[in-house]
């Protein structure tokens, strides 16, 4: 009997098991990026830039050319890979500690220059690899190992909304926030990543794709409970949707 695939593992990822925790949506994001690269036939023409933090673990699984940047510096590294190799697809893949804390400066200025790269932002509202410290994106009331049982906005301010912040600049072309907690949301997220990559290939400019993710280890939930946390806590504060889309899309 002849079979055809309804769903096939993307060829841009190695077949070995990755190091992420059970249910971690870094894995989901990797998978979506890999699927899009394969669909666009860009696996061999991509240069990826990975950061510091849990997101760096992805570097072990992508079958593309890549480098790893210092904490927060991925956009600066990526933008000049792109400027020196304009025919390649270049993306930076960063978590929230990396992108919105130590790398805020690089993030903002790369966006403001409208560099022709895609930044994929994994927002799980906590420092993952270092073990659950408060991130700029940690929700009010959320527990962390450096912010106590509950983030107190009177003391440390409110969680940073990166899409909304980047939406203040004129140069970025595509800004969107998606989640990965359900099949419809995952489908939307993949479409968003595809738009960002296609935009770049058409010389379009800077795109910022935020993916609301989880960290059941440091949230101290089961993977299934982390889906509930995303729906009940994360999405209400970080509204999903496309903040800016080029006219031609």
């Amino acid at each position, binding site marked *: 009997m002849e079979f055809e695939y309804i769903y096939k593992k993307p060829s841009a990822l190695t077949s070995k098991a990755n190091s992420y925790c059970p249910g971690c949506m870094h894995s989901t994001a990797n998978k979506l990026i890999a699927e899009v690269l394969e669909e666009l036939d860009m696996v061999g023409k991509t240069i990826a830039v990975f950061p510091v933090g849990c997101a760096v673990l992805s570097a072990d699984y992508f079958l593309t*050319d890549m480098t790893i940047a210092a904490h927060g510096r991925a956009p600066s*590294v990526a933008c000049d890979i792109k400027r020196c190799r304009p025919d390649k697809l270049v993306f930076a893949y960063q978590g929230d500690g990396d992108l919105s804390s130590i790398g805020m400066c690089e993030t903002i200025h790369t966006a403001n220059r409208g560099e022709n790269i895609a930044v994929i932002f994994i927002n799980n509202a906590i420092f993952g690899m270092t073990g659950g410290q408060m991130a700029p994106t940690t929700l009010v009331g959320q527990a962390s190992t450096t912010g106590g049982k509950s983030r107190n906005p009177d003391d440390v301010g409110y969680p940073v909304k990166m899409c909304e912040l980047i939406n203040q600049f004129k140069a970025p072309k595509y800004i969107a926030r998606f989640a990965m907690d359900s099949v419809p949301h995952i489908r939307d997220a993949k479409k968003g990543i595809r738009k960002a990559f296609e935009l770049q290939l058409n010389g379009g400019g800077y795109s910022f794709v935020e993916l609301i993710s989880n960290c059941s280890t440091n949230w101290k939930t089961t993977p299934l409970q982390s889906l509930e946390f995303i729906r009940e806590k994360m999405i209400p504060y970080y509204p999903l949707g496309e903040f800016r889309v080029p006219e031609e899309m």
Partner: protein
Amino acid sequence: MEGCEAIAEAAVRVGCRFFAGYPITPQTEVPEYMSRRMPEVGGVFLQGESEIAAINMVYGAAATGTYAMTSSSSIGIALKTECISYLAAAHIPAVILNFQRGGPGIGNITASQSDYWQCVKGPGSGGHRCMVFSPSTLQECVDIMGTAFERSQRDRNPVIILLDGCIGNIREAVELPDMRPAPDIDASDWCLSGCEGRSPRQLLPYFRPDPKTCAEQACAMYERWQKEDVLVFEEALADAEVVLTSYGTAGRIVNSCARRLRDTGLRVGIIRPLTLNPFPAASFSGLDPAAVKLVIDVEMTKPAQMAEDVRLALNGRIPVKSLEIPSGVLPTDEDIYEGISAILQGEGIHGI
């Protein structure tokens, strides 16, 4: 030509096609010049939003095989050391100019030599080393530029050229290197270019394949430098009774002082390192203790820094005295001449 511009033009001529920098005195003329020049040669210029961004832009550009350079001054280099460490770990070449200013802290913009330890001993965390060049004249600066890029590419390791505001802003006649064709980045067998038709390449700033191999490879490279790559200016060592040593701007002044001292009948030799790492240790260890009574190390920083390497090389065989001009103070010929004379007098050494 002005120092900064001549140095920048030399870099372009030997193949530099990417420059990212940030305004900081006394080197701002380098990014200004590059902003005009890079587009003319099909290269890329970008002003970073910070020193850190600028060196990381170099990291990205150099990872594609492009000859890339950045430039800064002392405290700016301190910020860049984060990425210099990453460059060394990921085996990505880059050329970094440090126009030293007086320090510590913001200090002042006077030509100084207080970054010897920073650049020679510890350009970032992790115990890696960079090759460090120390030209004295503008001609040496432009002559060294090709070697700096070639060795950086050969070793896939960052290279630092240690300068100061005096060299950066001096105007003197200079013969620039010929314009070379831009390096073919696709000919590189390590850079990132997309993995079509080959296996993926990874430039990773951590231990690959393992810590032991990484450390052994690095040490082998440093030993190779010591054997093959030392550059040094030596003068009148054969019959010297006193040897003056210094580098960079201090080296220029010491040259003229040596002439004056010889007029008094003193037999004065000169050892002026053109590479601080690898350090020309053999030049010092080759001195005859029976003939050389004293080595005088002249540095525009207090406490003296290079003096430590001079003492290591001499291993106690010949006494070493340092003339230390505090960082932030630009010495005149007379200051240095009198300083050296005072040291000689103190040691009971004098001419005929």
